[in-house]
Each structure stands twice: as structure tokens, then as C-alpha cells.
């Protein structure tokens, strides 16, 4: 095995029961992702991008196949261990932000740091640093519902990166943003991930987003195909 491989997916299959029908989303999917790599995941709606991200993050479990992250088989872990693994190693940027509405911007980020038992003093510094990085230094005490979509997205990014995860998963992180904001957000995300030496997988429809990435993979019929447009 390549020592540089951060995530290895082997023969993943996942299907969902929909009434009488069984809908196959992923079938015998295998792929490797290297450390420090940024990968764009493209595909039509319903092609399984979100499902794949959910599987990698451990939120969902495959019907069969293995997911190894840094050599650890997370599919063999218990629900509890997988949750704890996710807590430490994975940052997730959701399409719909999923900020906690009853917490301030700073507290949304602090929540993740607390879950990782980060010391309060350091956590405060880190929050300050992150908010500065995403350009929201002056909104730390605001509640999410008064922020614009772009601002919420940036908070979500800050939250996903707060605990310096090895892997950042982003599901349409620019879905609700105008082009210019989207570019800002992506640059930010890319900078931060690279700075931390992590792996990032971005599910997106957007060619602009794909252009930011080292590699583009196309999800089709439950399989991953290398995108022809990229090396």
C-alpha cells in the first residue's frame, strides 16, 4: 500500500429500500485518496455523492466493502468508536450549513472544540483565529439566523476545520453562494486544508469548484471514474 494513502475505499456497495424497490447507489466502488490531496467529486443529482461522503465520515455504513482511513478500518468499528473517530478526524461542511441556531457563531465552533476536549483558553484563541481567517471576526457573538447565506457557509467551514481534522468533507459548499463569494469560500477552504496537510473531498456540480481541486472524480452508476478533463 502506498504510504501516502489517507483514505482507501474498497468494494463499497450501498443501496436503499424505497417501497418495494431497491435503489442501488454505490456498487463495488473502490478508490484511494492521498494525504494533502484535494479531490472534487462530480456527478448528477442522485448519483450518490452525498451517500459516499456520509460513508466516509462514518455517518452512514456501507452494505459491504471497507473504508480505511489512515490504515484504520472504520467499517469494522462500533457505532460508538466510529462516532468518536469522526469527532476527532473528520470535518464536514454541509450544503445547508447545519449551524446550531441556538448558539452564537463562536459557540457553534466552540462546540466542536469542546467535544474534542480542547482547553478553553486555546479554544478561544482558535475561534478567534478561525473567524479572522473566514472574515467574520466581528460576528462571533451573532446568532446564525442573522447571518447571510455566505456568512453562514463560512461559519460552517470554520467549524469543520476547528479541530484540525485529517479529512475535510464538503457537500456543495458553494451551493447557495454567488460566484464571487463561492470563489472566496473555496480559496479559503483550500488554503486552510493545505495549511493543515489534510485531505479534502468536495462534492460539487460546479466546474469552477472542480478546477480548484487536484483531482476530479466522476460518480456514475455507482462507480467512480476519473474525470477526463483532469490529470
Amino acid at each position, binding site marked *: 500500500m502506498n504510504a501516502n494513502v489517507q483514505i482507501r475505499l474498497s468494494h463499497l456497495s450501498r443501496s436503499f429500500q424505497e417501497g418495494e424497490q431497491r435503489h442501488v447507489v454505490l456498487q463495488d466502488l473502490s478508490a484511494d485518496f492521498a494525504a494533502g490531496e484535494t479531490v472534487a467529486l462530480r456527478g448528477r443529482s442522485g448519483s450518490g455523492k452525498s451517500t459516499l461522503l456520509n460513508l466516509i465520515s462514518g455517518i452512514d455504513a456501507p452494505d459491504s466493502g471497507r473504508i480505511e482511513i489512515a490504515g484504520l478500518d472504520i467499517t469494522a468499528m462500533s457505532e460508538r468508536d466510529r462516532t468518536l473517530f*469522526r469527532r476527532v478526524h473528520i470535518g464536514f461542511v454541509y450544503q445547508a450549513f447545519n449551524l446550531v441556531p441556538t448558539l452564537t457563531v463562536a459557540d457553534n465552533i466552540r*462546540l466542536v472544540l469542546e467535544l474534542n476536549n480542547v482547553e478553553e483558553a486555546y479554544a478561544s484563541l482558535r475561534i478567534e483565529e478561525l473567524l479572522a481567517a473566514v472574515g467574520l471576526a466581528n460576528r462571533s457573538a451573532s446568532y446564525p439566523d442573522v447571518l447571510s447565506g455566505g456568512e453562514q457557509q463560512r461559519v460552517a467551514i470554520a467549524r469543520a476545520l476547528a479541530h484540525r481534522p485529517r479529512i475535510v468533507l464538503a457537500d456543495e459548499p458553494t451551493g447557495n453562494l454567488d460566484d464571487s463569494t463561492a470563489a472566496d469560500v473555496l480559496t479559503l477552504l483550500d488554503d486552510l486544508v493545505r495549511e493543515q496537510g489534510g485531505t479534502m473531498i468536495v462534492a460539487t456540480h460546479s466546474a469552477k469548484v472542480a478546477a480548484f481541486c487536484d483531482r476530479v472524480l466522476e460518480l456514475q452508476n455507482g462507480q467512480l471514474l476519473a474525470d477526463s478533463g483532469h490529470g
Partner: protein
Amino acid sequence: MPVLYKASFGYLLRHPWQLGLALLGICVGVAVIVAVDLANSSSRKAFLLSMNTINGEASHQIVAGPGGVDENLYVRLRVEEGVQDIAPVITGYADVNDQTLQVLGVDLFAERTFRAYTLPAAGSSGARFALHETTFRDFLTKPGAVLMSTAAATSLGLSGGDNFTITTAGKDYPAVLVGTTNAHGSSAAIGSLLVVDIATAQHWFNKVGYLSHIDVRLRADQDTAATIRAALPPGTQLLSAESRTQSITEMSAAFMTNLTAMSLLALLIGTFLIYNSVSFAVLQRRKLIGVLRALGLTRRETFALIVAEGAVLGLVGAALGVVLGVWLGEQLLLLVSQSINDLYFRVTVTDVDVSPWSLLTGLVVGVGATGLAAIVPAIEAAGYRPQLSLARSVLEHRSRRLLPRIAVAGLVAAAAALIILPLSGTSLLAGLTAMFLLILGFALCIPVIVDAASRLSAGFAGRLGGITARLAVRDISASLSRTGVAIVALAVAVSATVGVSVMVDSFRVAVSAWIGNSLRADIYVGVPGGSLDLELVDDIGHLPGVAEISSSRRIWLEMPAGRTRLLVIDRAESGHGGTELLDAEPEATWRSFEEEGAVVVSEPYAYRNDVGQGDTLVLNTREGPQAFNIAATYRSYDANQGTVLMSRRTYQRHWQDDAIDSIGIYLAADASLQTVMDRMRELSQGRQALYMRSNRDLRDLSLQIFDRTFVITDVLYWLAVGVAIIGILGSMLALQLERAREFAILRAIGMTPWQLGSMVTLQSGLIGLISGLAALPLGLLMAWVLIDVINRRSFGWQMDMSIAPSFLLTALALSTGAALVAGLYPAYRAASARPALAMREE
């Protein structure tokens, strides 16, 4: 994890209505429990305190039959047997200025060992010594000399040396206040006590030659007890003071257990509420919980979060409930002590005795119930997959799949109850357990029924009321995970009202018939707290217009095993048939009753002692224990351990006591009630103040007392209904809140605010109606258990269930009305919400 909890409570704080109602539900539930406990324990404590005050240091007491203990026994014990540490006592009640006070007749020379407070206190003036000497001298030598606490003197408006009049058994006696008692650290019990010399007490209570009892203080050496026992004449016994007190308090135990059960019912409903509130809080936050799970919160942490939330709610609610409970307890105390006075024994309670134990119990029960109620939603929350994958429909689908299982659990609970009932004999606790199991079991079946009902009726409703109606009806079933709990809570509360009203009404019908049948004489005459002047009775018998007289005497017989109530009657011809025999033929029964010394026992007595026609019972007569044949059992609703009925002839033969407590007067055919009463009044003038009641008055009075006894029951079940209304309001509010987005869409596609408001209102009303319908069978089931199990086990009464349709209709109206009222605000909110804002929220 402060931020995590901030997230959790931030939600609750943003929904103050829901938070407030959940707290109120717990608060009222706990308050009722605490209040009932405080009222019960305060009454019991007040009684024990007054008994302990009267008994002082006495470890034992020498008691005898109705007349009391022969005073010569006391003299013989002291002079011939050399027994020290004994004291003669006469107790009784007397009226002074319309206040009833307990009188304690003592021999000061024997008091030092027993009751320090009876000793006269030194005067406060400079002439302390002289005052003292005269107090002591006057107390011993002046007939009618009284000592009382300063508090009692103040409340009677008396000061030292004042003459006043005291009334016992309808006769007036002169009294003089010669000093105050030595009541330091005095309690309420001493506060209302008059201490007199034994000679004065004998005179006032018509007990010359006798003592109520002799107090005995047995020390470690057993010789004294043996010496005393050897000297006791037949029919006189040495009993432990503690067990005597206990046997009196035991009489009210069943009554108090019933009150506690009622309060538990309020908590049960409160627990449903809590469950409801916490479930909502979880449902509404399923997205938030999904996010937290995605961020790495484990299932266990999620579970703990929800349970902790419930526990904090429970703690706050229970703490408020405890405070409210103390206040409520003060209100209930009067009702409880009044009932105890009417039914069992005299007790004067003025203050709630706030025992930390009661408060702690309330707190623990409140927090525990909330914790339990939060467990189910917590399990549900912990089961959420991370992120936001769960759509509501999936949830509803899942809970509907659970419905049959819940119903099966309910059936199992009900079946368990039905198994417990026949197996548990006479255990009241088992009876109550079975009742709660039945309620719970039935309650668990309600959601299935509601589901079926609303689905079946949706189409029908649609045809009748259009899309609004169909939406309203279908939604009940579609949101069963939330509506179900609200319906159950309301149904249980309403069923409690049905059960209790049917029980009370059946009881009232039975008692009223029984009183009507038992009271046959035209006029009843007695004296409060004493016996009638026998010459006066004789004179009344000879009044023109009086055809016949019956007489009765009520006494308590004491045995080491406990007390027996003996009712001695001299039956009048015209009164025959007034006692309804249950298991024997009247003619033979009354013959052996009058001529062969047989007795007849009341139904409660037969039930308690498991005896009946053909058995014998042993009573402690003046000649010692004596067996009596039981000729029959008679119907009675007396509220204690039951009564033994004996003919006056038999009684006089065994007890040599000719006292009469009350008489019944049968008028001649042509006599006027008023004329005879006037003649009696004239006759008794200056001899004895008689207490006269016409048949009608006495009937009314008896029913009044009956109703008064159930006031507290009324209060308790209205509290339960209050808790349920709070619950339904909370549920409706939460339900509508949760559907804000749905409403917004409905508004966006063109539904008018009025339509939306009507839909919500209709839905509330339907929930109420369904709850009410579900409550009826449950209520009747409860009434049956209350009548045939709880009442029988508590009091030994047997009665038929009588169901007035008005109770059922009232229950339906109550339930629908409550739900409609509760639905008003949510309807208003739904109608007035701006759709754009609501849609953005999700």
C-alpha cells in the same frame, strides 16, 4: 460540556410556552402529592401530639368498659399494693363560649411522674408566692376550679379569678380560672387543654366513682406490671399506651391511603405531561440532534443530554411544586382534618407541619417521574442517525409500527391487574396497584384506538366538512406520535373525573337509601359528648304525642388487639326493619338478638374480621372476656372498623351500665312534630340542653357530612383535570409550532387565516372528543374498581354502581371544552403567522 447544554437549553428558552407548561405540569403534580402528604401527616401528628400530651409519660394505661375504671382500684393499688407511678385520669370534652376544649381531670399529687405541664405555673407578679399558694389551694378545694394555658385563657377572654360557665353533655356547670398551667415549650395540644381536679372532672362528666383510665408508668422492673395485673378485676385491663393510640390512628389509615392514591393519580397525569413535553422537545430538535450526532456526539451522550434536560426540568418543576404544595397543603389541611373529625376522631390542627421528609419525597418523586418520562424520548433521540436523514414521515411511520406493541403492553398491564385483584385478598395496596395498572394498561391502548378511529372517520369528515375537516382529522392520526400522548393524558384525567364521580354518586345513592331506611324515628334527641339524663328520658316517654321511644348508646370496647365499637340499642316496634340484614332472616335474628344475647355485626365489621352469621366474637365485659353469637350481618356505611350491635338488655346484663346517649321518638298518629319538640324543650329546660333533630334534619345533616367528606376528593380530581388541561394546551401548542412550516405552505397555496384557524380548532376539539370518548370506558372501569375493590378494602362497604348519564355527558363536554380552550391560542398563532417567515425557519 457547557456549550452542548447551552444548545439544548437554548432551545427550551426559545419556546417559553412549552417550557412553562412542562414545568407547570410537573409542578402541579408534585404540589398535589406534597400537599396531600403534608395534610395527612399534619393531621396525624397533631393527633399523636395531643395523645402524647394527654398520656404524658404513661407507658401503660389501665382501662375498663364503658363506665370507666372503678376509682377504688386506684386506691387499692396505691394503699394496699404499694404501687407508685400511677395516676388517675378523666378526659372529656367541654364547651366554653362555643369553643370545644379537651378537659383533663387529674390528681396533682400523682402528676409529677406523668405531666409536668399540669402543675400550676408561678404567677408573674411580685406576689408570686401568695398567688401560688392560693392557686394550688383553690385548685384542690374549689369545685369547678380550672387551670389552662395562657394561650387558652387569652382565646377564651378569661383572666385569673374569672368565673365562667362550662357545658358538658348539655348541662352547664360553674367554673373558675384559678391559674395557668405550666406549659413551657407548649404545643397546640396543651393550648386547648383545661386541667381540673379529678373531683371536678367526675362531677362534670357524670363519672362519680369512676376514672377514664389510670395512667401507669412501668419501669424496668416487671414486678409492677405483675402486681397490677393480679389486682385487676375482670373486664379491666392493663394496655400499652402506645398501642391504644395506634389503634385509634389506624382507623383513619385507609382514608389517608385513599387520599395518597388520589394524589398519585395527579402525578401520573403529570408524568404523561412531562413525557409529552420532553417528546416534543426531542421531535422538534431532530435536526439539531442529527447535527450533533454528525459532529461526533455518541448515542450515550445524546441519551444523557436528553435525560439531563428532563432531570433539570423535573428538578425545577418539582422545586416549584414543593413550594406550591406547602401552600396547597395548608388549604387541604382543613378539609382533611374536618373529614377525620367527622369520621374518626377529634383532632385540632391549625398549622401544617412541614416535614422535610414530605418535601424531599415530593422532590424525589417529581424528579424521578420526569427522569422516567424523559427516558423514552431520550432513547428515541439516541437512535437518530447522524445528520438530518430522518424525515417526519419516517418517524411517524416508525411510531405507528410501535402502536400495536404499546397496546399489547397495555393489555398485559390490564391483565396483570385483573390477576392481582382476585389474588390479593383484602390488601388495599394491592387494590390500588391493580387500579393504576388498569389505568395504565387502558391508557396504552388508547393510541391504537385513536389511530383507527381517525383514519376511519377521515373520509367521512371530508365529505362533511371539506378539505379543512379532512386535513384536521387525518392529521391527528398522521401526527400520532405527538397527539397520542396528549390524548392519553387528557383521557386519563377525564376518566378520573368519571370514575370518582360515579363512585361518589353511587356511594351517595347507597348511603342516602341506607340513612333513609335506618332513620325511622320522627325525632332524634341526644346531647353532645355525653349521656342523657335518665329521668328526663322517662319524662319524655310520657309526653302526650309520644308513641314509642328507642334508645341507643355508643361505646368503644378495648381489647389488647384493638378497639371495637359497640352500639347498644333498645328497639322500638315501629323501627323494625330499619336495620337491613344481609345474611339472615329478620324474625329469628331479632328474637335471638333480644332474648338470647346474640349480636348483629355491621358489614364493615364482618369484612374486617372475616366473620358472619353463625360465628362468635369475644367482647371484654365487666366480668371479663365473653363470647357472643353473631346472629346476622347488617348493611352499614360506618367509617371505621365496623360496629357490633347489641340489645340493651344483653348489654345491661354484661356491663351493668344503664346510660343512654340518644333516643329516637316515634310520634303518635295524630301528634304534631312541632308540638312534641316544643314540649320536650320545655321539659328539658334547666335540666339538660338537648340536641333535637327531626328525621328530615338528621337525614340532611348526615348527607351534608357525607358531602363534606368528599370535598377533598373533588378538590383533588379538579387538580388532576387542571394538570390535564395544562397538558393538552402544551401539546396543542407544540403540535402547531412544529407544523409552522406546513401551515406556511398551506397559507402560501391559498388557505385563509380563518380556514387555518378553524382547522386547528377543529383538530383540538376532535382530540378532546376522542379523549373524552376514550375516557368513558376507562372512567367506568375505574369507578368499578373504586367501588368494588378500593372502597370495600378500605372500609368494607358494599354498594351498587349507579351511573348517572349526566356524568358521562359532563365528562365529554369537559374533555372537548378543555381541548378547545387549549387549542385557541395555537389556532390564533397558526392563523396569524406570516408564511414567508415560517417557511424560512426550516
